[in-house]
């Protein structure tokens, strides 16, 4: 998995995991999200449009990032999930906690 991280002009951090988000790559995602929050970026969008696989480790990293962001007064939102990702959200009933947004640009609009 490759992980792209950027920060927009409005201060929102955008994280793009490309490829498989499994036990190995979830650690990398968890650290990246934790570093962002520690560095003052508590509003984060995770763009899942290029995440081809997600398991419980990847979910754990997303939930960990969500909690850290909220504790710092921000939020973590997920956008553009692929069918593989949506399937796992639904099986775990986490589609309400990790409500999928249609686009990265508007993920923090509502």
């Amino acid at each position, binding site marked *: 998995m490759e992980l792209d991280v950027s920060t927009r002009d409005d201060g929102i951090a955008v994280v793009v995991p490309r490829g*498989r988000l*499994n*036990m190995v790559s979830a650690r990398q995602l968890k650290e990246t999200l934790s570093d962002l929050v520690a560095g003052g970026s508590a509003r984060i969008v995770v763009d899942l449009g290029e995440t081809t*696989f997600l*398991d419980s*480790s990847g979910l754990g990293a997303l939930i960990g990032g969500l909690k850290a962001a909220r504790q710092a007064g921000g939020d973590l939102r997920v956008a553009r999930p692929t069918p593989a990702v949506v*399937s796992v959200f639904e*099986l775990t*009933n986490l589609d309400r906690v990790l409500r999928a947004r249609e686009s990265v640009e508007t993920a923090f609009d509502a």
Partner: protein
Amino acid sequence: MPEGAGGRGEEAGRPAVLDELAAAPHRLVLSAVADPEVMDLVHSMLEHLFTHNPQVSDPVRVKFEMSVIEILGNIVEHAYAHDSALPAVDPSEARRFEIQLLATDREVVATLSDNGMPVSLDLGDLSMPDELAESGRGLALAASALDTLWFERVEGRNHWCLACNLG
């Protein structure tokens, strides 16, 4: 509710497909050290299986791949928990696992076995943890995605059988 999840896994019936698997010429088999780096190799095996078995629909592929990787992740984690507790592990005694994959016209099947620690689990009681929990979903996730999830421990080895029905 998957087969094998109705009671304790070791008391549930042995899936009949295991006999078919042993004799199937198109089954894929890998034996390797149970470390995290091997996960990508198993993803590639699944990709190969699906490429050659177009009868397996995309939704079934997603559920099956996720379940196989969850169980393999469980094996790797247990292997590491055991080996890291030892002062020095002889490479010849490293934890190994074997995986077999097969797709038929009726189902897609995986068996996994390993020489790891006894796994203590009750396949009849796999519930999702609190929604903000960061771990503990793996087996529950596999159980909800599969039609068959079966486990037994025989002669020091853990044996898993996973299957999704087609159609």
